[in-house]
């Protein structure tokens, strides 16, 4: 089997800085599947926090930088539904605001090549059984931007169902937002916590040891609530479960 063309890993600024375990797991997983991974060191942030808080002028330079860093790759893979969504669904609006038709064209050209991890695995590599081993009781929370912006559908669940020895249980009201919402979590902290408390309750009702999602930002919120409750449930990114093997368990 010939190896697929190299992919650029868009680690995302939040994962790079706060949750390095996720892009490390993504790298190991993709390399295990025979993919050559590049990490263009000049990458920083997709600008989502600026865009969604209303600071479009602050986000526009990051759109340009994204093109400069990733423009030459056939495939760009990010272990984040919301950062992928920001690039695919919001960069065009920002480019239009910049008034630079060249930037608009480049954004239009790159967006089909930007994939959330589960999309890349299932659609581009065509795998669902990635050879992972994870002998724990797990429930999966589909994050809003994966679900309703990118429409990843059941790809993450298909990947999880194929994990060896996993005990995967359905999460009640799974498709309801956890209440993170970026700066919403700070600006409307009370509503955010009310939403997150209900999410935490549903997670606890499953008696899972681990709650898995495709976005560490949502997981930081959900995990922060569960940890404050000393609930005894840990959060893990999908990539970390998929990277786990019998030889190197997570």
């Amino acid at each position: 089997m010939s190896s697929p063309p190299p992919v650029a890993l868009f680690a995302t600024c939040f994962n790079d800085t706060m949750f390095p375990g996720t892009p490390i797991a993504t790298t190991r997983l993709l390399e295990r599947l025979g993919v050559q991974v590049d990490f263009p060191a000049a990458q920083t942030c997709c600008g989502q926090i600026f865009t969604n808080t209303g600071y479009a002028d602050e986000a526009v330079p990051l759109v340009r930088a994204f093109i400069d860093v990733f423009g030459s790759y056939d495939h760009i893979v990010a272990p984040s539904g919301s950062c992928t969504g920001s690039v695919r669904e919001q960069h065009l609006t920002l480019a239009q605001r910049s008034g630079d038709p060249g930037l608009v064209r480049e954004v239009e050209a790159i967006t089909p090549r930007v994939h959330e991890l589960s999309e890349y695995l299932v659609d581009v590599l065509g795998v669902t059984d990635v050879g992972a081993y994870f002998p724990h009781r797990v429930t999966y929370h589909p994050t809003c931007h994966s679900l309703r912006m990118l429409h990843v559908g059941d790809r993450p669940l298909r990947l999880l169902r194929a994990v060896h020895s996993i005990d995967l249980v359905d999460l009640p009201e799974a498709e309801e937002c956890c209440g993170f919402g970026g700066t919403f979590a700070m600006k409307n902290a009370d509503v955010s916590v009310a939403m997150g408390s209900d999410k935490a309750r549903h997670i606890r009702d499953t008696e899972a040891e681990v709650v898995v999602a495709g976005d560490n930002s949502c997981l930081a919120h959900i995990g922060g609530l569960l940890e404050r409750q000393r609930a005894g449930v840990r959060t893990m990114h999908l990539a970390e479960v998929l990277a786990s093997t019998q030889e190197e368990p997570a």
Partner: protein
Amino acid sequence: MKVAPQDLHQNDLPLAATSSTFIGMPKFPTMARAGLDNTVQRRNLQHATHTIRAKRAAVVHEVSDWEALRLDGAATKDQALDHLADYLVQLEDNLTAAGATVHWARNADEACRIAVDLVQATGASEVVKVKSMATQEIELNEALEAAGVSAWETDLAELIVQLGHDRPSHILVPAIHRNRSEVREIFLDEMSRVGRAAPEGLTDEPADLAEAARAHLREKFLRAKVAISGTNFAIADTGTLVVLESEGNGRMCLTLPETLISVVGIEKVLPTWDDLGTFMQLLPRSSTGERMNPYTSTWTGVTPGDGPQDVHVILLDNGRTHVLADDLGRQALRCIRCSACLNVCPVYERAGGHAYGSVYPGPIGAVLTPQLRGTSTPIDKSLPFASSLCGACFEVCPVRIDIPKLLVALRTQVVDEKRGGLPTGEAAAMKAASWVFGDHKRLVAAQQGVTASARLLKGRPTIGRLPWPASAWSDARDSPAPPRETFRQWWSRTHIDDSGASSAEGSPS
């Protein structure tokens, strides 16, 4: 004539004034806190929204071409909005030809004055009302009351709200925040003050409550000389107004009185009678979760000898032209007031409708109100941020209003309007963060501070309470402790050789 956005100068177009009920309202997070603490309302809303959500999902999923219907609904509304001036003139011509009198109102004050004058000209001291968002928006009941005219709401939920001296908290189900025991108490306490009293021994069984309302309202229907309605659709090519309802109170109001006054937002226009078919499928399924609503009334001006003989239509702008002038924002005018977005919204479900400072609550209110009224007051500035951008609203909207996208655009407007003034703490932080992200070398330098703090934490997995402003996070949530090594440090250690080139370690060759 197509009204292209460049033909309209948005800043020249008047905004709607904030009506007296909502003047001075604090920002959304403050209002939401009151809603979160109202435990009866929380349980009522949780139960009601989840019930109607499930009903809607069931009847939508049984339609095989739902997405085609949504696209058709959106396209039809866009067609009407893009040529609104033409369709409004056509509507006026056809209404006039059918014996109705058409009035134009630029704002709430004008609309109220026209309606009050029309009622007073009949000599009536009371009117019966069909549930109407437009008359709520212009606070017509208050204007009538000030003129000495009693306005009786006849929709059951509106009656509950009116008798309870309360405000609606939902577009379709205005008393959604009330449960049946509260309704029983309101009926027992209040009905006798304004008409037929509730029967002694009234229980909180829904059938008993409905019967009490029926008896109370019946005497008002039978003696009413004037009715006031809104409309769901105004058909340009026939001059027909359409009202969809569930209880038959609308049919009573629209047929029994001698005078009928309808307040119609200018965005209610549909080009043709044939267009109505699409919306008769979209609206009931999206709003009440029914395949078909129980009562649909249509009337075209005056029918001699049958029904109201004095028919008036007040076409209301009240900020709508201002919304129309925005290329992106105008899609909010497609709204057919179904409430599907409210019923799926996790923020609405918990904060309640009163937190939105407008007769239009929930996701659609968060994009419509700041466009109709502008973003100058604390509540209107805060509404675009009253969402986690989860996207559930867009998914259910029968006319495909991209509410999350509009929310982000309005957030940008709020921030842009502050630019040039004294920078807020948030603006300074955003500018600084943007500068850090502007060059990966600056990000690397900032990350060194993060990993240094990890060493200070000595391996603690999470952080507890933090000082302001981080307390907004940490009051209820622990924070992840920073790692000792960033991803890019790990990458350099494992994937870059001493010469600085990518090593082949771990990658296939």
